């Protein structure tokens, strides 16, 4: 591949990253020039975090090359990236709370060792904090644990911009303002502009589109692992950006029904939010950006209706976990035991488990949901991720619970399986089951009868029927205004 940008601070050429069947990055090329601020936007799963991981060296692309200052960097890793001046501030805070700010800075800057390092590090981090957030009022000798979330974020940002003899050349800011108030955010963005003006480069990822439009000198829009649009500052307005992020593929509208007449089976009121309700036979979607309170609400509903002390013969709700390693799968067990664990009451007579009934239930669901295994007695870990997820679906659907809560259940599931499960959800809903479905995938929200859009832990919009479109959901999740 010829070098197209000889002066680029860093250039990623034709990078491809696959996670199983999913192409997280599909031949992405991006050159970051000195003195520019790239605004990177796209909805969840578009590949933003993956391209960042490739740039900061924590993920090696399966294909593609990385150049810096006209030389090809191979091998490329976190160490090489740092020595080239690549710094990264993550959305998840990564400071050690038990150490002081000075000590945390020392961990980040490995070249600052030797006698008297505390004084040197103190000077460096204090200078950087003063530069980015004038009047911050943070004691750099104090422990990180005593800081508020916003202050920790400020320290991380200051650490990334600090100069310890290896000046920062490219700073990646992933949702840096999510925990900062408006004043601090303005200070940060002003510093970004100053940094860029002196020849530094910044990649700014934000769901606050105004910040992108005001700060970035170039806006890059990603979708499905590809760069779908790229324009200079002023090339986009707010609406244009939302549109560019949206799906270009036309959807066939799923058959939706109105449920106004039926009784709600589930209701929940959240603080400072529109009320939530779900009716019998309805598929209710929870949309919005990831981590804006959807999972928390599902868990709250589950906790309220699930037994703590005494097992219920007729469970009120059942749950399909998306994070199956964390709260789905029982590692030591067979596929069958994993599947039946939620409905053991139905499979026992006079308190004793009925093997025959359990085996039959397993065989029924193996056929119905096509779990690809020669024997349901095989260990659950012998299955692929998608098939493990099918077992979790079978576990939930084989209970008699009238309400199924789903927490982004299609993570890591291949397209074929998804279609099978969509069909099954539709059929079960026709039969009177209620589904509450959180997903970060727009396509899945289109399958819902009604969608609640979340922002900052509250429901900000309710979309019904034909109003459920990608653009409406995106607009609601970014603006917080009723659609």
């Amino acid at each position, binding site marked *: 591949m010829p070098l197209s940008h000889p002066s680029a601070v860093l250039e990623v050429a034709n990078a491809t990253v696959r996670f199983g069947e999913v192409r997280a990055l599909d031949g992405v090329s991006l050159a970051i020039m000195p003195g520019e601020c790239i605004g990177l936007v796209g909805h969840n799963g578009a590949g933003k975090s993956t391209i960042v991981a490739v740039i900061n060296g924590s993920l090696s692309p399966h294909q593609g090359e990385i150049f810096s200052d006209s030389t090809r960097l191979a091998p490329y890793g976190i160490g090489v990236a740092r020595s080239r001046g690549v710094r990264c501030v993550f959305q998840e805070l990564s400071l050690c709370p038990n150490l002081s700010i000075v000590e945390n800075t020392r961990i980040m800057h490995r070249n600052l060792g030797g006698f008297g390092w505390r004084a040197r590090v103190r000077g460096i981090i204090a200078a950087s904090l003063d530069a980015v957030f004038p009047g911050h009022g943070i004691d750099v000798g104090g422990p990180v644990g005593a800081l508020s979330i916003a202050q920790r974020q400020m320290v991380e940002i200051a650490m990334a911009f600090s100069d310890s003899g290896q000046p920062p050349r490219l700073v990646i800011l992933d949702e840096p303002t999510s925990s900062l108030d408006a004043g601090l955010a303005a200070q940060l963005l002003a510093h970004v502009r100053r940094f860029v003006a002196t020849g530094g480069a910044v990649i700014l990822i934000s769901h606050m589109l105004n910040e992108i439009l005001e700060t970035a000198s170039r806006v890059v829009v990603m979708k499905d692992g590809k760069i779908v649009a790229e324009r200079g500052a002023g090339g986009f307005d707010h609406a244009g950006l939302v549109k560019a992020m949206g799906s270009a593929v036309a959807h066939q509208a799923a058959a939706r029904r109105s449920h106004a007449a039926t009784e709600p089976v589930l209701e929940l009121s959240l603080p400072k939010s529109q009320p939530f309700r779900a009716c019998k036979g309805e598929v209710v979607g929870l949309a919005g950006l990831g981590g804006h309170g959807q999972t928390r609400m599902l868990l709250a509903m589950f906790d309220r209706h699930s037994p703590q002390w005494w097992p219920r013969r007729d469970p009120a709700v059942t*749950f399909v976990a998306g994070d199956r390693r964390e709260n789905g*799968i*029982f590692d*030591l067990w067979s596929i069958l035991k994993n599947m039946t664990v939620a409905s053991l009451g139905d499979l026992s007579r006079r308190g004793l488990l009925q093997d025959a009934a359990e085996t039959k239930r397993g065989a029924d669901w193996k056929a119905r949901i096509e779990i690809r295994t020669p024997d349901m007695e095989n260990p659950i870990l012998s299955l692929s991720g998608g098939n493990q997820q099918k077992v979790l679906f079978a576990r939930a659907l084989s209970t008699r619970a009238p309400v199924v809560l789903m927490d982004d259940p299609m993570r890591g599931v291949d397209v074929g399986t998804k279609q099978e499960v969509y069909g099954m959800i539709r059929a079960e809903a026709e039969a009177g089951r209620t589904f509450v479905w959180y997903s970060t995938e727009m396509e899945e929200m289109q399958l819902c009868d009604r969608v609640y859009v979340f922002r900052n832990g509250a429901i900000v919009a309710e979309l019904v029927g034909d109003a459920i479109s990608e653009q409406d959901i995106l607009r609601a999740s970014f603006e917080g205004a009723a659609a």
Partner: protein
Amino acid sequence: MKALLAKPWIWSFIAALSVWLATIAVTRGASTVGLSQAALTFAAFSVLVGIGQMFVITLGPGNIDLSVPATMTLAGTVTLKYMDGQNGLILQGLGIAIMVGVSVGVLNYALIKALRIPPIIATLSMSFIVQSAAIWTNRGLRIKPPQVLADFTTLTSFGIPNIALIALLISILAWVLLHRTPYGRWIAAIGQSLPAARMAGIAVDGCRFVTYLLCAVLAAICGYLLACFSGGAALNMGTEYLLMSIAVVVIGGTAVAGGDSNVPGIWGASLFMFLVVSMLNTYGLGAGVRLIMTGVIIITVILLASGRKAGAR
């Protein structure tokens, strides 16, 4: 044969059998029956507390009941004082032992749940309270058990000690509970992953509560029987059962990390623990050497058993 070798409990039986053979080889078979009956009797007490502890350990990392010895002591002293050597009060005495177990179990889980104290601390603090209660009830008295009960616990039926038969019955019940009921599945699920168990709709608190209750009740029954067997309750009667209850679970092949338990292993391990000590006694070794040897042998058995697992996976 291969399937048998794959069982996690087989190693404790192999160990017990080897030690048994090594012992009767030295005595040239002179006390085979006596040794076997003694082994079964003393193993039975370890089995009773071991089963309770096994259920608790099944609940997963951090779950353990350290109040077992104190519960045994309290149950022993309280019931003997109540029965006061009268044969007519034996069943009431058993009832009181069970009540003692229930109270300790309830208080244990109350500490764990309401005050959010880790089980290891909660049950340890509880054991101080329970032990103090035992001292207070006992006041240095040594009351004889009812004669019928004392005879029952020391005699044999069909050549097998009665105590061993009771332990066998309880073991079978425990096996059914663990493998044939929803409760057994639920605690194994909780032991593998607490969040996953909660999301599967299992009544986690109820299951854990019942398990701590069960452990304390088994310890109390064991204390009741042991006090009658040894002709009276003593304040230190439970001491050795703290380590014993945990050791038999581990040697028996139950996963220390929880979620995977088995009842037969408890028997193999309990027999083994008694036989090791009597073997070393038979060899006429001093107390210090005996303890060191006991430790080394236990470590060896655990290594052998876990080595097999690592190879199989």
